Each structure stands twice: as structure tokens, then as C-alpha cells.
């Protein structure tokens, strides 16, 4: 889990990727929002059950899927229960009955699911959920902020953060294969509006390409009158502990598995995202670490600073759960200074990525100085110039455990 875990190509995400030999005719370019790219991915993954509940800014995913279904292009049972809680509650036994399951949500909807998110991972139901990162009330707001999904970090779900419409499409399809391989559910998040509603050219693979990549879901254990297997009954203390240890073992397989799955995807499409991406980190004194749409802004800032001869790079965290400790240690080895940009806030703790990274690098020989900045909490705009200021003023920010408010 070192170099192989990382995407090191310097090209910009979201731009035309190199095409795989023979793969060119099996994709077409479409102008899609991030949400519609997710809907295309979900359609191509051929789930058999896709319940949904509307919530801004997720709703276009639900509407696009219902539109596909109405046009006869999406063969899934699609229901619209009265709440996200019931959506997830329906997803779990549907998955356990042996069908592929997809849904999408955001913000309060994900929080409402919280109880049953735990249930899903405990039941080892490999559901894939797309989440649009949006502030959580109160006060009421709709802006990009990752606190909603980061607050689910202990629920036993694999978590990916996506920077672009293309990455969201690719990640949802990859997430099904990863989740179903280890029987752990997966969450793919992208930021409200910056990704969810921004239009980009997206390479959309042909159905046959996705079918080749994603085998039919056929779990050995399932809810089936012919099998008479039951889920959820009371267990002893020892059985519960064993169950959690098995979940831990499955989670531990994910980083390497995600790298392999990403590599397979690259063979078919030419696009690879890694679980951690190093962008212009060679010889970097200072490295920015962040997730989601902030990565795109940080790339612009890095490019501008590199043009000025400043040795700065970016490490993008794409896989957040399980936290890719080994890959991050490798990616940040030899780096003097890290600036974490957190578009989220955990009161009494600070920026979640900041705290996770401190924990991951603790005890590492020659560990970098880590400064955590709460940048963009609540959707506050953080333009490239602001990120350049963060780098210029780095020495003025505390490098202790407290995250620093900068917006």
C-alpha cells in the first residue's frame, strides 16, 4: 500500500483522460452534472432496488433515475417511501435478499438514516449510497459542507469523496464492486452544487463495459424461503464481538482492494483515481491535504505557486473509510509541512480530516508539521488565492491539535 495505492499522474482531474486501447468506442462523452453522472452510474450498475426520497441538492439523482425507469431504460424496483429512514430500512433486507441496491441522499437525509446505516453494515448488506455533501441544520442551509457524511465515519461504511462528475460516475460503479466483494456498504460523497450541479463533459461507459467490470451480485447467504436463514436475532457477547472483528477484517481488505478495482477500471476506461492522489508533490516542502471539490481549487493554487517556484503540492484523500493510513504515510513521507483544509466541523474536536490525519501520522519518523485549517465550513467560498494565502501564512497557524478557523 504505497506507490500502487496512489495516483501520481500530474494531469488534472475531470479533464479528458488518456483512453485505454480499444476502449474509446465503448464510451461516449456527455455533458452531465455531478448528480446526473451518479444517476448514469447507478443505471449502468443495474441495481434491482433503488428507493429514493427527495432532498436538496440530491433530488436530481432521484428524478433522473425515475426518468430512466419511466423510459423503460432502468429495470429496478423503485419506491418512494415517506422518509430516508424508511429508504435505508427497505434497502437492507432487499440487499440481504440477494439483489443489488442503490439509493442517494444528502445532509439531514443521511443523518436520519444514521441508525439504519449501522444496521446495514452490521447485516453486511453491500448497499451503495451516493451522498451530496450539504450543511446540517441548524441553522437551515444548503451549502457544501462534509460534516453530514463525516459524522457517519463510525457506522461501518466504506467512504469515498469525489472531486468531479467523472470521478463520481466512476466511483459509484467501483463502489459496487468493492462493497460486494467484502460485503460492506459504501458511501460515495460529492459536494453540493460545486460537483452536484456543475455541468462537465463526462465519459459515460457503454453497458457492456460496465457489465464486464461488475459481475452480477449473487451472495451465498440470502433471505430466501428455500434457504431458511435469518438475520438480526439476539446474539451473545462473544458472538457480537466476533461479528465486529469480522467486519474489521473486511474493512482492512478495502484499501488494497480499492486499488485493484481502480486498476481494473483503468484497464477498461483509461481512468484511475487511486485511493490517495499525490499532485505535484515531488520535492514539495508544503503539501495541502483535503477532500472533495476543494481539491480542484487546491490544484489551481498549487499550479500557480509552482509557477512562482514555490515547492507546494496536494494530497487528495479519496478513500476516507477505511482511512488509508499506510498510503497517506507513504504519500507524506519526507514532506516538511502539511496544511489540512477541512470543509467540515466537529464541535469539540475540530476538522475531522485534520484529526484523522494527525492520528494516522502519529509516531511516524520525521512526521510533517500538521496545521489544520477550518476552511469553507458552511460552504464559505475558498478561492485559489485564499489557498495561496494559507500556504504563505502557514507559519502563523498553530500546528497543535486545535484546528484553526480561517473563514
Amino acid at each position, binding site marked *: 500500500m504505497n506507490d500502487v495505492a496512489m495516483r501520481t499522474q500530474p494531469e488534472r482531474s475531470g479533464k479528458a483522460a488518456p483512453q485505454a486501447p480499444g476502449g474509446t468506442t465503448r464510451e461516449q462523452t456527455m455533458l452531465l452534472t455531478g448528480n446526473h453522472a451518479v444517476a448514469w452510474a447507478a443505471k449502468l450498475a443495474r441495481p*434491482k*432496488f433503488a*428507493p429514493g426520497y427527495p432532498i436538496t441538492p440530491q433530488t436530481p439523482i432521484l428524478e433522473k433515475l425515475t426518468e430512466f425507469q419511466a423510459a423503460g431504460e432502468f429495470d*429496478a*424496483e423503485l*419506491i*418512494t*417511501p*415517506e*422518509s430516508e*429512514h*424508511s*429508504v435505508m*430500512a*427497505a*434497502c*437492507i*433486507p*432487499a*440487499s*440481504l*435478499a*440477494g*439483489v443489488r441496491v442503490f439509493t442517494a441522499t444528502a445532509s439531514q437525509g443521511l443523518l436520519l438514516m444514521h*441508525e*439504519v446505516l449501522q*444496521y446495514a453494515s452490521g447485516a453486511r448488506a453491500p448497499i451503495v449510497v451516493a451522498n451530496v455533501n450539504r450543511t446540517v441544520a441548524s441553522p437551515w442551509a444548503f451549502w457544501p459542507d462534509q460534516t453530514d457524511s463525516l459524522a457517519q465515519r463510525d457506522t461501518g461504511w466504506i467512504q469515498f469523496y469525489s472531486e468531479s462528475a467523472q470521478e463520481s460516475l466512476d466511483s459509484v460503479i467501483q463502489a459496487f464492486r468493492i462493497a460486494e466483494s467484502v460485503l460492506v456498504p459504501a458511501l460515495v460523497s460529492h459536494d453540493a452544487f460545486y460537483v452536484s450541479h456543475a455541468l462537465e463533459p463526462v465519459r459515460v461507459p457503454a453497458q457492456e463495459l460496465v457489465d464486464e467490470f461488475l459481475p452480477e451480485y449473487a451472495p451465498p447467504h440470502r*433471505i*430466501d*424461503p428455500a*434457504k*431458511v*436463514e*435469518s*438475520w*438480526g*436475532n*439476539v*446474539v*451473545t457477547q462473544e*458472538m457480537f464481538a466476533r461479528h465486529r472483528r469480522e467486519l474489521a477484517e473486511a474493512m482492512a481488505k478495502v484499501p488494497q482492494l480499492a486499488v485493484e478495482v481502480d486498476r481494473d477500471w483503468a484497464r477498461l476506461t483509461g481512468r484511475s483515481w487511486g485511493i490517495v492522489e499525490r499532485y505535484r508533490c515531488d520535492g514539495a516542502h508544503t503539501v495541502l491535504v483535503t477532500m472533495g471539490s476543494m481539491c480542484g481549487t487546491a490544484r489551481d493554487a498549487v499550479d500557480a505557486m509552482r509557477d512562482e517556484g514555490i515547492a507546494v503540492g496536494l494530497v487528495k484523500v479519496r478513500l476516507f473509510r477505511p482511512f488509508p493510513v499506510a498510503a497517506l504515510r507513504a504519500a507524506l513521507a519526507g514532506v516538511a509541512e502539511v496544511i489540512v483544509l477541512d470543509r467540515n466541523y466537529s464541535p469539540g474536536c475540530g476538522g475531522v480530516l485534520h484529526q484523522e490525519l494527525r492520528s494516522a501520522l502519529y509516531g511516524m519518523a520525521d512526521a510533517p508539521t500538521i496545521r489544520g485549517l477550518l476552511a469553507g465550513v458552511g460552504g464559505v467560498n475558498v478561492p485559489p488565492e485564499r489557498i495561496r494565502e494559507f500556504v504563505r501564512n502557514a507559519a502563523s497557524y498553530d500546528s497543535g491539535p486545535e484546528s484553526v478557523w480561517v473563514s
Partner: protein
Amino acid sequence: MRKLEVVEEAMFCSGHAACPGCIEALSVRHVLATLGPDTVAVVPPSCMAIIAGPQPFSSLRIPVYQPTLESSAAAASGIRRALDAQGKRDTQVVVFAGDGGTYDIGFQCLSSAVERNENFLYVCLDNEGYMNTGAQKSSSTPRFASTGSTPAGKLSRKKNLTEIMAAHEIPYAATATAGFLPDLVRKVQKAKTIRGTRLLTLLIPCIDGWGLTDDGGLGVARLAVESGVFPLYEVEDGHRYTLNHARRTRRVAEYLAPQRRYRHLKQPEIDTLQADVDAGWERLMQRVAASEAQAGMTRAAVA
């Protein structure tokens, strides 16, 4: 007295974890026997979840999925749709939920599932309180009943689940109780033939929670029906009413007498409950009469 002949496929096994004399175990045994082996059960936290047994044991010969307390109808919807997607459209999905999981915390998702007319049978095992946690009040607990959380007696009335379901125009809603077993079995058989959501409310006198003698459950179940406290009836599509036990032959006081939860009642409260039951019975008779009149007009129009 005649011996009841019950044709039974053993779907619910002995060795289960119910209390001695439990009417819930008896009721579920007959519901399951009637549904048969091509069935999947959804059992939220409740007495029935305990009765079903801890892992790796099960007292049911069918797959059981235990969802969270508030999500039975949503879980049943998910299983139903997954089975449909696999072409298993004839497999029955049955929910066994308590009144807490139905009238209270599970009510929102039940209403939604009935609105969508999801194809499953929902059996509410109504023992009028949270008996699995030691007999606290639910919104199914009747007026004046003493519970762990209403020691001086509950002040508000019991929700009428069947009427709420009828207002959803559910294909089939019915009340039944093991005190009238052939009627219960017939209703399960009927529900089995109907597609869409079907809901049976089974009155389950609780030995411990109601304060009955170990062999007192069935007798109280019969008194509930004979006094009109728990009328046996069916509603189809929300408006076709059929009364299954037409006469009231007992006073409400006779139903209350064997139950410790009502032991604190004074005569004025007993009179109030009698008046409540009289009024409820009258309203039910009006609905039955309106339904019969409507059917008569339809027959006349066809003729």
C-alpha cells in the same frame, strides 16, 4: 363444547421462548401454519422477536429478518420488492409486530407502505402495551389501564388502528383473536389470497402485562369480543364492512374483572368505559349498515 379441528403444518416449533400460557405464541402458530413454508417473516424487537429465539436458534421454519423497531413496514417493502425482482411473486412476506412497533414508533412507515399498497401481510400482535420491556403504555393501551408508565391509569383512549387503515383504503383490514380461532384462521386464509397490503390486528391478552392467570388468556380474549370491547370485523378497500360476531352478550365490567390492570377502577370509570364501548359499537354498526346499503344499491344497479 366441541373439539376444534385444526389442520396444521408445523411452521412454529415447540421449545420457543414464550411465557407459559402466551396467547401470542398460540396466535403466531396458527398464522404461520396457515401461511405455509413459502413465507418470509419480518419481526421487529418485541415479545415475538424473543419468542423467535436467539442466534443460532429459531422457532420458525422460515427465514426471519429482524429490523429496527420502527421500520417493519419499510423492511417488508424492501424484501417484497427484492423477491419480486427475483420473480418470487408468490412468496408471502409477513410482518409480526407488536402494538408499540405498529401504533407508535412504526406508524409512519406503516402508513407509507399502505399508501403504496405494498404486497405483504402485516400482523399486529396487539397486547396493548410494551410488554417486552415490562408493560409500559403504548398508544394502543386502553383508557384507564394501569401500566408501568401509567401507574394511576392511562388518561387517553386507544388508537383505532383498523379504522386508520380503512381510511388508507387498504385492500384488507381485519380484527381477530385466538379466542375465536376458526375466525382467525379464515381471515389469514382470506388475506393470503389478496394482493396488496393486508393488516390483521390480533388481540393478544398478555398474562403478565394484563395481570391474568396463566390459563386466563383465551377466556379474556373471548370476553373482549363478547362485550364489544374488541369487535371482530373486516374492512375491504376501506369501505366494505363485515361484522363477524354480531351480538354483544357481556357487559364491559365482566371483561375488566379478571384483569389486574383494571383492578383500581371505581364504578364511574367502569361506566365511562361501558359508554365508550357502546358509542364505538354504535359507530361500527352504522358503518356496517352503510356498507350493506351500498352493496344493496350496487346489486340493484347490476340487476
